[in-house]
């Protein structure tokens, strides 16, 4: 599969937006879906549909096998040690809530500290805030520097004897900074502190290797990874899944149920209560295959070229200000244009078919730090090209004209 020609795998690009070709630069929000994934959903529902894990009839057995095949594919893709370390959730948000809730319940008490960063998405802050309210824990914030990065040092500075878990993003969805998560994990482990990584933005763009990273928890959003909506993944080391109490309760996650007491099922069932997102899990296998077919090295190379190119373009465009200048930068270009409000930018660009996002991108703390209410953000996917960035740039120029 030639990456320069990958747009044609995505049917959405044959549609027009306001009579223009779609220039989709909102992949950090959610990625478009290749045809293979959509076809898989279609075929599953029209030819093979059944619930998994419960019935013994033909369709149920086939569906269960397909469902578990995805678990194995994910395991391999992220190089987890055991397929039962892969838990399917409804999204990364649920994955993080699962950890915060169960870890908090079992291990956190008043005065304990959870260390996050100023870069965190609300999904990696609000769940910890709940524990602040319910248990009186403290939340510490590692500082972001003027390049929009969080360094190993700034993490180290905030670790205390009371730090019980470190929860950090792998790749900032605003500045694009890639955090030194492996080093942070090593440091944390040397002090006996487990690490949760919010991998929402890294998972579609970086090479994932859980055993190499060594982290304890890793949260992924499948819909940002060329997969269906309504699906996420929690990777967690087996010992944690064994030790943590279950999260939601219901069918499929139990052992024996009596009026007086209940025992729970084994991994990963213990954390997959109720009917799961069967069709989505099964289709996500195609997303993994799609990524493997292109090859993550090719994806990284392609996207790095785009980022370079895009940064260059925007830097040269006066009154455009790039937000963050990290050395290690992922597929995100956030910017402002003079005093033009980002929502106005987004609306005007949209007229040209250029889809970007404007707002605080669920990172109010970072925006407050930056002294900005909102930013405009162009984010990239495998299907983007230099022409897309050229169109972004010329549409920005139109926008500047309107507000001149």
């Amino acid at each position, binding site marked *: 599969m030639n990456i320069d020609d990958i747009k044609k795998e995505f049917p959405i690009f044959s549609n027009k937006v306001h009579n223009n070709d779609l220039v989709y630069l909102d992949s950090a929000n959610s990625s478009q879906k290749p045809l293979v994934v959509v076809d898989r959903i279609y075929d599953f529902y029209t030819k093979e549909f059944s619930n998994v894990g419960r019935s013994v009839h033909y369709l149920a057995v086939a569906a269960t096998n397909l469902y578990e095949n995805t678990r194995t594919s994910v395991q391999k893709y992220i190089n987890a040690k055991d397929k039962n370390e892969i838990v399917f959730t409804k999204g990364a948000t649920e994955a993080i809530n699962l950890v915060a809730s169960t870890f908090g319940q079992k291990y956190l008490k008043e005065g304990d500290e959870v260390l996050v960063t100023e870069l965190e998405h609300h999904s990696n802050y609000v769940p910890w805030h709940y524990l602040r309210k319910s248990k009186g824990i403290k939340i510490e914030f590692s500082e972001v520097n003027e390049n929009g990065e969080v360094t190993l040092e700034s993490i180290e500075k905030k670790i205390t004897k009371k730090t019980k878990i470190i929860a950090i993003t792998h790749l900032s969805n605003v500045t694009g900074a890639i955090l030194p998560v492996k080093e942070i994990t090593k440091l944390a482990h040397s002090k006996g502190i487990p690490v949760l990584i919010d991998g929402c933005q890294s998972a579609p763009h970086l090479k994932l290797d859980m055993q190499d990273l060594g982290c304890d928890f890793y949260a992924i959003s499948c819909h940002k990874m060329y997969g269906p909506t309504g699906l996420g993944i929690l990777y967690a080391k087996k010992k944690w899944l064994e030790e943590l109490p279950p999260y939601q309760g219901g069918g499929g996650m139990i052992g024996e149920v009596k009026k007086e007491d209940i025992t729970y099922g084994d991994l990963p069932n213990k954390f997959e209560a109720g009917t799961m997102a069967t069709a989505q899990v099964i289709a996500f296998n195609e997303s993994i295959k799609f990524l493997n077919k292109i090859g993550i090295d090719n994806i990284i190379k392609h996207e790095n070229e785009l980022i370079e190119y895009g940064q260059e373009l925007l830097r040269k465009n006066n009154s455009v200000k790039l937000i963050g200048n990290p050395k290690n930068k992922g597929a995100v270009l956030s910017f402002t244009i003079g005093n033009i409000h980002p929502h106005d930018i987004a*609306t005007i660009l949209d007229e040209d078919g250029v889809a970007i996002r404007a707002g605080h991108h669920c990172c109010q703390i970072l925006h407050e730090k930056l002294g900005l209410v*909102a930013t405009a953000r162009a984010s990239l996917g495998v299907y983007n090209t230099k022409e897309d960035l050229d169109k972004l740039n010329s549409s920005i120029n139109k926008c500047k004209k309107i*507000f001149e």
Partner: protein
Amino acid sequence: MNLKELYQEIILDHGKNPRNLRKTDNFNKDAKGYNPLCGDKVHIYLKLNENKKVEDISFEGQGCAISMASASIMTSLIKGKEEKEVKEIIKDFLEMIKEKESLNTKLLEEDEKTKLMCLSGVKQYPMRVKCATLSWHTLISAIDKSQNEINIKSKEI
């Protein structure tokens, strides 16, 4: 009306030079509005006299061109009106932005209506409708003083 025209008009008229962007002295009613989705903020100050007439109205805030222009146009139309009239105008505007073709109120001049109708282009952009209506919802809550802070997300539009 296409969106770029909308931007031209509003920006020329109000976005760049918002009227009443200040804090009324001795205001006797006020309320804050916030749109958590885009971070738009507005604080409306109102001075009603003993006859419930708007002696002065002003606003402070930050936001996009549409929300600033909307607040600017709103404040300039509302001054001098009676509380009851203000409510009628708000209702008419919100209905127009939501579904109606035009403004029906007899309380505004034709040229005032034309100004307001400039904002009708946002209809096609439900997210931006919230920008256009934030100051209006906030004005309601200032008058009613039912809620101190109004959170636009709960509003239909």
